[in-house]
């Protein structure tokens, strides 16, 4: 059962810290990362819901796309950089206000998701004509190539995945961070900024993938260990591994790329209509617009739903049956919810079986178990949105 990471696995900057903390290192997206620390996944999960959890997500793909030639007019430069990325995605980047972060999807020509990602407009006027882009680990090489190619000759993509990316999540995250970076506590959900730390700059967004309030912090290699140690020295903070990261995002009903999203799944099927911007719908100017607009009009074969599962957890790949036993779909993420103390799952079913309360079944080890469609998130989000200034 012991996992021996393959020799060619990449290590993150903070690898020695994870090992020293007793992290159980496992291969994930080509990196050796801690799946849990000695207290275990359930204790870590609950700690993050009640206090503050520190996650190392340096395997992900932070980057900056920067115009090669800026006009100096912040609005014009932003419009120019937005025009380079928008043909690849379904979000409204042009309409971002300074400092705003947006969740969006990179789509193929048939409207399938190549990745889900965050794109942000810098707050500082002098940074007009740049975008902060964070993509998933498993897809980052392909994503970066795609974005760089689309912007070739006009903008340059600078990868920042040699840095450390930390997520500080949980109801106490804001007070912990206030002690280290006072200004960051003033950010509203889905906003970001650049902050001074010990002679270095941190890129901090108020965002995350746990459903809790929290922050994601990009830190230069020279300051990664200092920042990690500083945050962890606070009694309210404990390190959290990939295991609890997954159970937290599942409870939050957030899709995981490669599982609940892939290149065959459209944003509408995945229940991410909010990510298909109004302006882009009206213009029908995004990849796969024909399919996606028709799905928005109601022509849809499958949709993502949340399921309460009775008994054993239904894992990824488990078949979903209707109440008569006919196969109607598959579980794409499933497991145990530490907060609810029961099995929960995400999966795809036909729209006429997707209403909350619909009784269904899941097949686990050949045996049907009762399941019921429920609304997501399974556990309410607790994002902190501040009134617009």
């Amino acid at each position: 059962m012991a996992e021996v990471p393959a020799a060619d696995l990449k290590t993150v900057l903070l690898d020695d810290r994870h090992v020293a903390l007793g992290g159980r290192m496992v291969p994930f997206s080509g990196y050796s990362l801690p799946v849990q620390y000695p207290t275990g996944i359930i204790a870590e999960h609950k700690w993050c819901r009640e206090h503050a959890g520190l996650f190392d997500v340096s395997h992900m793909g932070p980057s900056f796309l920067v115009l090669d030639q800026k006009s100096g007019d912040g609005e014009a430069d932003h419009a120019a950089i937005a025009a380079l990325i928008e043909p690849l995605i379904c979000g409204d980047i042009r309409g971002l206000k300074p400092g705003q972060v947006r969740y969006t999807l990179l789509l193929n020509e048939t409207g399938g998701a190549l990745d889900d990602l965050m794109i942000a407009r810098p707050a500082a006027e002098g940074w007009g004509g740049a975008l902060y882009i964070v993509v998933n680990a498993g897809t980052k090489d392909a994503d970066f190539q795609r974005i760089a190619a689309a912007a070739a000759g006009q903008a340059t993509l600078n990868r920042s995945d040699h840095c450390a990316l930390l997520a500080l999540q949980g109801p106490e995250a804001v007070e912990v961070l206030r002690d280290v970076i006072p200004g960051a506590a003033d950010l509203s959900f889905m906003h970001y900024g650049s902050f001074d730390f010990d002679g270095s700059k941190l890129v901090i967004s108020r965002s995350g993938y746990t459903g809790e309030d929290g922050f994601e912090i990009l830190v230069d290699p020279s300051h990664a260990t200092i920042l990690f140690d500083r945050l962890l020295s606070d009694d309210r903070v404990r390190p959290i591994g990939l295991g609890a990261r997954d159970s937290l995002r599942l409870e939050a009903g957030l899709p995981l790329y490669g599982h609940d999203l892939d290149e065959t799944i459209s944003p509408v099927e995945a229940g991410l209509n909010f990510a298909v911007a109004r302006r882009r719908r009206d213009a029908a100017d995004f990849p796969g617009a024909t399919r996606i607009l028709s799905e928005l009009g109601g022509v849809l074969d499958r949709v993502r739903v949340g399921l309460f599962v009775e008994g054993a957890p239904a894992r990824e790949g488990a078949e979903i049956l209707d109440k008569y036993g006919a196969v109607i779909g598959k579980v794409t993420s499933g497991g145990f919810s530490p907060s609810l103390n029961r099995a929960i799952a995400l999966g795809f079913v036909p729209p006429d079986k997707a209403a909350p309360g619909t009784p269904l079944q899941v097949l686990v080890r050949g045996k049907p178990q009762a399941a019921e469609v429920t609304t997501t998130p399974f556990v309410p989000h607790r994002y902190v949105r501040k009134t617009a200034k």
Partner: protein
Amino acid sequence: MTKFTKDHEYITEDGTVGITPYAQEQLGDIVFVELPKVGQKLKAGDEAAVVESVKAASEIYAPASGTVLAINTALTGEPGLINSAPETDGWIFKLALDDAGELDGLMDAAAYADLTK
């Protein structure tokens, strides 16, 4: 004398089966246990139970052939007993062995300790 399998089950002299402290440590928090049925006949190596951690399901195999005499129903409500007390309150099922001689083929504590070193 308690014996051990390479799959990290233990079986005591009276036929009580569970997973070792090493195994529960590796699996992490156990959240669900599927038990065999009392009276079920098992051959050595048959899948007898399933323990599910937060991350994954793991099969528990019968260390020897026999009939299920008893199951630990306490695990249904409190699967974490396997983590907190794998060798006592966290036992999984009890077998009436067909042939106690089958246990001779399993590892003793010293050999098992070597395996998990």
